[in-house]
């Protein structure tokens, strides 16, 4: 069974935000919500580095641990999904997540949070796969169609890798070996621990 992971190669990412756009387009996410974002370190300075980040689908997911209604679940592929029918919009997952992945549409009075939205690894949500209802609540279910997340497929420099963790790591390792330098599996120890 695959264990899905994201990896962003900071030596390749050119901060084009193509992944952000691809995600918005594929999932038609609510207004004001960005499931993916690109963060640039040392912006405009020597040594500038960019990283595309979304939910990393953690092994021991902090968001799931603190959710008062226990609405998260992990698929057989290691993808962390949540049930919007159960979510109460309390924001605890956002406080616990290291990557700032959970997002909230600001639609209610006094800024009360609506239902949480986050990256689904393009795997939809609970309920039947590929339905209209699933698309409206969670966005695309490309995984059910045998495709990988839209962001990584669209990435022009192939900086953003998505797929089985072992394969992704192999590709990255080979790259580093060819070009030299040290590997930087950004966020992996935080998200996946030692495993």
């Amino acid at each position: 069974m695959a264990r899905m992971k994201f990896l962003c190669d900071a030596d390749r990412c050119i901060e084009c935000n193509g992944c952000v756009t691809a995600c918005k387009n594929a999932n038609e996410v609510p207004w004001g919500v960005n499931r993916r974002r690109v963060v640039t370190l040392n912006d405009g300075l020597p040594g500038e580095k960019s990283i595309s980040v979304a939910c990393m689908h953690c092994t021991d997911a902090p968001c799931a641990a603190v959710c008062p209604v226990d609405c998260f679940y992990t698929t057989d592929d290691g993808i962390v999904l949540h049930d919007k029918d159960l979510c109460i919009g309390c924001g605890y997952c956002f406080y616990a997540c290291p990557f700032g992945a959970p997002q909230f549409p600001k639609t209610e009075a006094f800024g009360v949070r609506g239902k949480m939205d986050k990256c689904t690894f393009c795997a939809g949500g609970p309920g039947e796969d590929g339905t209209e209802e699933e698309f409206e609540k969670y966005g695309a279910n490309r995984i059910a169609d045998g495709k990988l997340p839209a962001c990584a497929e669209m990435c022009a420099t192939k900086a953003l890798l998505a797929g089985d963790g072992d394969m992704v790591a192999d590709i990255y390792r080979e790259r580093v070996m060819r070009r030299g330098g040290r590997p930087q599996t950004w966020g992996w120890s935080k998200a996946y621990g030692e495993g």
Partner: protein
Amino acid sequence: MSKGTPTRSKSKRILIGSALVLIAAMIVPLTGYVYVAVAQPQIESSANWQETNPRSEIWREVRQGSQAYSAVKGPEANVLIDNGGQNFRQIRNGPVATFGPWLLAIMLLGVAGMFVLSGGGQKVEKPLSGKRVPRWSTYVRVVHWIMAIAFLLLLITGLSLLFGRAVLIPLMGAEGFSAWAIVAKYVHNYTGPVFAVSLLMLVLALARDNMPSKVDVDWFLKGGFAGKHVPTGKLNAGEKLWFWFNAVGGLVVAISGIVLILPNIFEARSTMQIALLVHAGLALLYIGGSFVHMYMGTLGARGALDAITKGHVSSEWAEQHHDLWYDDVKKEGKEFVGEEGEAGRGPEVPTGSGSTA
């Protein structure tokens, strides 16, 4: 070891040897701290760190949650990693979730113990003459009950959010609990400000009555907390303690709660993490304290409930529990004859079922 060694000294040596090994086993891991203490300043003090290894510097800063740039705008969208979440998770799901229920259980048992030890709560000893003395104004009583009802709603809904996953999901199912949790969230969010305002009003109204005095020290020294009567004014030291816990702890619960309902104003996760932990931890202490308060007001000191429902108490109750205050009120000529039904009954004192003022 030579052959001729007597077994006694051999076993002694084994003993000393194993003791040394044990001590070493305990000390050696501690050297890690020494290493960290020595190595850390070295790393940090090397001024040309950035120049020698810019890459490491970048990743170190990222792990420490430093700010960067992102074209996507949102709360802390420009921060790659926030480490506070891990502490938040561990403290909330750890100490708060484990000690909380223990604390509440101990307080409940404590109250039950007080009830048993005092022989079913303190009763008014003298027969009731029907004379009454005024105690709390209408303003104080109305504000008290608005606050009390708000408190109970916040207690029920707040505990649902904290412990519902462990306690209520097995009972109600995930869908059932989620439906309740949404109601609980809204009730909690809208009752919160009501509680905060009424608490503030009550604190302002009662602060003067709760100023500590010399008598309060005696109350603690002479065992007032154990149910012994020590001469007291309008409020005894235990009641004053509860008041000041409310004034400080209650206001902190209220302020942290208000921070939590305004995520658009307080965007930083670190603020919210701390606010929620302070809020939940203090709320649990507060709930524990409220058990004692509710018990004392009803069964613990019979006749006290009249003070906050009718606004006046029997003179006998006043004399028994707050003698110094009773003397003052009597001198001021405020004692009056109560309505029918407020006199004559024996030491078993009414619970306030008669008509109200």
